[in-house]
């Protein structure tokens, strides 16, 4: 067993462990942190696969951006010490069963299926190649998805702002005494 193997199983192990912890931890903030570990480990996998640019994006956007966003929202919506309400046991069992069945099915399919890799020479996924492909509008270029994504991001940004902005009388408040100290806010 090479070091590479060990590295892989280490990453895989941490991904699975922290994934499980993410979805089972009763403290939301901890879940977020566990998620961060999962994402970082995933980035490690990408590194191992030699997709350095992707791994970097994964680290910055996911681990850096999204997790921060999530943590902020957690802090906004609940107390740090607050424990998440757990679903009823029945729901957990059924979900687990369904999930297990799904996983087994999928894995069985994967195992049974014979993959045939292409024999064409590989392309190195270095930053140059990636960058070139990203803005190329040739047959293997990704200029159009790139633009689409940029528009999507813009739209998401605008949407997020609009949604999160406090709007007056969005829902008529049934409890006018909720914020008695700050009536001008609502």
């Amino acid at each position, binding site marked *: 067993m090479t070091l590479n193997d060990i590295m892989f199983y280490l990453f895989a192990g941490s991904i699975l462990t922290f994934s499980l912890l993410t979805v089972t931890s009763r403290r*939301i903030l901890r879940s*977020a942190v566990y998620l961060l570990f999962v994402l970082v480990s995933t980035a490690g996998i990408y590194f191992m696969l030699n997709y350095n640019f992707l791994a970097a994006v994964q680290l910055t956007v996911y681990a850096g951006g999204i997790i921060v966003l999530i943590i902020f*929202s957690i802090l906004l919506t609940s107390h740090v010490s607050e424990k998440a309400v757990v679903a009823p046991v029945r729901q957990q069992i059924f979900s687990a069963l369904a999930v297990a069945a799904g996983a087994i099915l999928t894995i069985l399919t994967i195992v049974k299926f014979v993959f045939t890799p292409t024999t064409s020479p590989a*392309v190195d996924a270095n930053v140059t190649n990636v960058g070139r492909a990203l803005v190329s509008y040739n047959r293997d270029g990704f200029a159009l998805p790139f633009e689409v994504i940029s528009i999507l991001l813009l739209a998401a940004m605008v949407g997020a702002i609009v949604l999160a902005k406090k709007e007056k009388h969005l829902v008529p408040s049934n409890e006018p005494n909720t914020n008695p100290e700050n009536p001008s806010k609502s």
Partner: protein
Amino acid sequence: MIDNIPLNAFLILSTLMFFIGIYGFLTRRNLITMLMSIELILNSVNINFVVFNKFLYPNHLHGHFFSLIVIAVAASEAAVAIAIIINIYRNFKSIDVDNLDQMKL
């Protein structure tokens, strides 16, 4: 570099991650943790894309770019979702998904 690790190992890893994500989505009551489960799912899918790219079609970078796009989508999705969550929280004083059955009316 990692050629001796079989493709199936990656796929099984991503499958498990995917279903763990689904499990989380099904069982967590908190909207934010559900969102995190979705991130897990997306992540597992990303792994698949990348691995297929690497092992089966190294002559292209399609899987790689797909992952990139997914990450971007995930980011914007997270942003919008969190905006919605905050909005919901403001209106319902709760982000427990069980309280949010107004949709059926």
